[in-house]
């Protein structure tokens, strides 16, 4: 709630951006979520940070959700907060799996740097103009994107993934690791 205008950030954003906001609803924890298109993401983020009416300078997190069944494959979620008035706003972007890219907001919020890098490697969503698009958490020989729903949770395919890594590892070092697994059935849930 902005102290002076005593309006919620979503309403202020609606006033400023007019009909560019496709949809807005309130999540269960009473934080307003605005769904916008990725074309005017940078414009919205610029408004959110610099406009004195909104003034949400703290970026809490950036994440992506892999909606398996709906046509819009990925949802990218940004959460902003204002630490003085403690008002929070969440931005959602729906992008299809054909061209999964999102503009980078690291120039506005430096804390977005690592969040975007993690999203890039975990979901395969390309973040454009990112200053340093290297891998963050995954080892460099992993090329799959684990957090997608197509990646296996456990069971037979996961064990193949492990065996590939063990073989790759054995070529490099002189020690022949154990690839046979007495508890193989434990992996197949």
């Amino acid at each position, binding site marked *: 709630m902005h102290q002076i205008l005593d309006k919620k950030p979503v309403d202020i954003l609606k006033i400023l951006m007019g009909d560019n906001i496709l949809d807005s609803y309130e999540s269960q924890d009473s934080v307003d979520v605005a769904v916008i298109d990725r074309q005017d993401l940078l414009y919205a983020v610029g408004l959110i940070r610099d406009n004195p009416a909104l003034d949400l300078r703290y970026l809490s997190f950036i994440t992506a959700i892999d909606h398996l069944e709906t046509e819009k494959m990925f949802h990218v979620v940004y959460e902003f907060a204002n630490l003085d008035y403690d008002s929070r706003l969440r931005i959602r972007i729906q992008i299809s799996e054909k061209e999964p890219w999102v503009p980078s907001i690291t120039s506005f919020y430096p804390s977005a740097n690592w969040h975007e890098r993690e999203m890039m490697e975990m979901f395969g969503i390309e973040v454009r103009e990112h200053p340093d698009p290297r891998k963050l958490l995954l080892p460099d020989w992993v090329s799959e994107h684990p957090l997608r729903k197509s990646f296996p949770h456990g069971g037979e395919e996961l064990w193949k993934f492990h065996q590939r890594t063990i073989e790759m590892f054995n070529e490099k*070092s002189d020690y022949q690791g154990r690839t046979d697994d007495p508890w193989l059935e434990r992996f197949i849930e």
Partner: protein
Amino acid sequence: MRKAPRKPHEYLKTVGGIPSVPGVSTTKLDETINWLRKFSIWPVSMGLACCAFEMMSAGASRFDIARFGSEVFRASPRQADLMIVAGRVSWKMMPVVRQIYDQMAEPKWVIAMGACASCGGVFNNYAIAPGVDRILPVDIYVPGCPPRPEALLQSLLLIQEKLHKSKVEYF
């Protein structure tokens, strides 16, 4: 009639074929070297995750690991004999653990502390290697998540027994 005095070699009592003189105890060279090594096993500090804090508690004053001679957690593998893999080993960390193990000086032992180091433990997914024995010859597996410091101390005693019985390799 006085008994004939015993000849010099008869003075020596033989214990298991080895002549024993009072006041002098003879033992095998291997046993002495192992006995010396047994009470000064220096672990390399390979604390990865939650088990690292139970290892630190074992090193702190309440469960004092110094009583068993391995108080000094050496940072560099060159001066360490024991590697306690304390915590979950992710695939990205595996080459590092293997490199540290290779760079340790020869008689070396490995304790896989905790369920995650022994068999992947709670995390049965893509990121955690299912057990550090995929790439390291592990001597002792310590169950528990995290195992209590006493469990770690007991594994240290097991290592000392194993060490005591092991054959010393010379040049």
